[in-house]
């Protein structure tokens, strides 16, 4: 009962507080910008909005591609890299959760790769694969796959043995139990891994596009930087932020749907 009322209240409050804090941030930015009075150092929110509107419809810079199309290019790379990375990560993670031998074979590589920044691989990837789409997708994979593996393995490992016993004693075959209980119970943690991986793939792809690309939001940011078009830099960053939030929002909805108990706990 008390948990319930607390929840009701926070439902009311949370959007309010969050909206207010975002608005406060924008106002603060505005004030600082009007003190600085130099749009190259710090453009005001209006400048950024202007740049956003301008390049949404108008092409930038010379290839006749709008900001939307650059965003679409980045998104496509992420979709491919993230999708592939998820499939590979979930597959390897499931194998590791299922077999001790496979786990011991793969584990050291994951442990080794975890502290490595994916960006360190960019030069090698360029040497090996040039500057086409392949190295970019590979770079995302390098970031995404270990995260997905770890989330999958921990998810499957942490399924309470009682749940599996319960299913077996209710007449579920081993296979039925694997699919309907173990994997199902691990889904929320697998999706949580996806949320982490989304952020990861944006980091990787923007960096890759800054070094070797003719399109994409990273490319836009680098070009705008070269021409001291700070408003556009901010506009592109804003687009990345909004797209990232959108993807995360979708995953959170999925999570709420998959895990009613967790959704209640998290508000």
């Amino acid at each position: 009962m008390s948990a319930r009322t607390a929840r009701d209240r926070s439902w009311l409050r949370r959007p309010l507080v969050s909206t207010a804090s975002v608005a406060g941030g924008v106002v603060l930015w505005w004030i600082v910008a009007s003190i600085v009075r130099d749009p190259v150092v710090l453009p005001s929110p209006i400048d950024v909005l202007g740049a956003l509107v301008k390049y949404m419809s108008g092409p930038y810079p010379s290839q006749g591609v709008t900001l939307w199309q650059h965003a679409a290019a980045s998104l496509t790379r992420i979709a491919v890299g993230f999708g592939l990375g998820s499939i590979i990560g979930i597959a390897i993670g499931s194998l590791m959760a299922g077999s001790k031998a496979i786990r011991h074979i793969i584990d050291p590589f994951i442990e080794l790769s975890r502290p490595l920044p994916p960006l360190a691989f960019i030069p090698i990837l360029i040497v090996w694969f040039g500057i086409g789409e392949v190295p970019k997708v590979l770079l995302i994979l390098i970031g995404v796959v270990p995260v997905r593996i770890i989330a999958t393995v921990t998810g499957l490992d942490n399924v309470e043995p009682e749940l599996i016993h319960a299913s077996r004693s209710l007449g579920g075959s081993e296979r039925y139990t694997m699919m309907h209980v173990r994997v199902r119970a691990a889904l929320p943690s697998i999706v949580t891994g996806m949320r982490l991986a989304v952020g990861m793939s944006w980091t990787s792809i923007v960096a890759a596009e800054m070094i070797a690309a003719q399109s994409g939001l990273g490319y836009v940011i680098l070009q705008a930087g070269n021409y001291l078009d700070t408003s556009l830099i901010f506009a592109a960053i804003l687009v990345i932020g909004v797209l990232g939030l959108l993807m995360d929002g979708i995953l959170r909805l999925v999570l709420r749907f998959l895990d009613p108990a967790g959704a209640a706990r998290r508000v």
Partner: protein
Amino acid sequence: MTESIIGAGNPGASDGSVITRPARIAVQNVTKSYGSRRKPTLVLDTVNLEIAQGEFLCLLGPSGCGKSTLLNIIGGFLTPDSGSVTIDGRKVERPGPDRCMIFQQPALFGWLTALDNVMFGPRAQHKVDASTRDRAMSMLDTVGLAGTANKYPHQLSGGMRQRLSIARALINEPQVLLMDEPFGALDAITRGQMQEFLLNLWAEHHMTVVFVTHDVEEATLLADRVAVMAANPGRIVHLDSVDVPRPRSYDLIDSPEYSRVRMQIRRTIENGGHS
């Protein structure tokens, strides 16, 4: 060592009852060790036990004496090192819906509604037909959860969850119910209600029940017979029948027969298994 073999193999001295009904569950010379092959720890030492059809047997003993291990062997979740368990003459080799296990924690499927939790058994066995839903609903009704069919487990109280897990087991119409301290996590009032509930259920369906507890009062209230185990190595040291007519309730808890059985059990436990 000789003590334990005598204790396990021949608990008859203090066994007041003569079983006339046919044995449904027969535990024969079951031995189980944990740990490495070089340094095994004996957890169950030649346990013998016969449980009659429709009998309510309580397995009582201190923590760590092997009650759960024995129950898991009967349930088919563990295989004994030697000896065997048979149910109606058939050897137990794997878990099955004919003998359902109820755990201390209800182990409900959190992503399924109460109704879908109850429907899990029929679905898992691919035995869903037009009547399954109605049966599941009436099963929820039986355990007093008719109004919560569409709630998720986390929206239920502890006692409701445990009742749901019982409903989920009962839809399979198990002939044997294995319960591992099912009410241990509940508060005293709820536990009392659950005990009454279980007794009513059992009076109606008369399944064979093996009920693990370390609460002497709970054991004497529920059981036809109480099997007392001792630890290191785990073995059955005392078997006693509780000759109190049914229906029973907590009001009778101070009656002479209850007191006699409880005294006897306590003495056995205090003497470290030498009754």
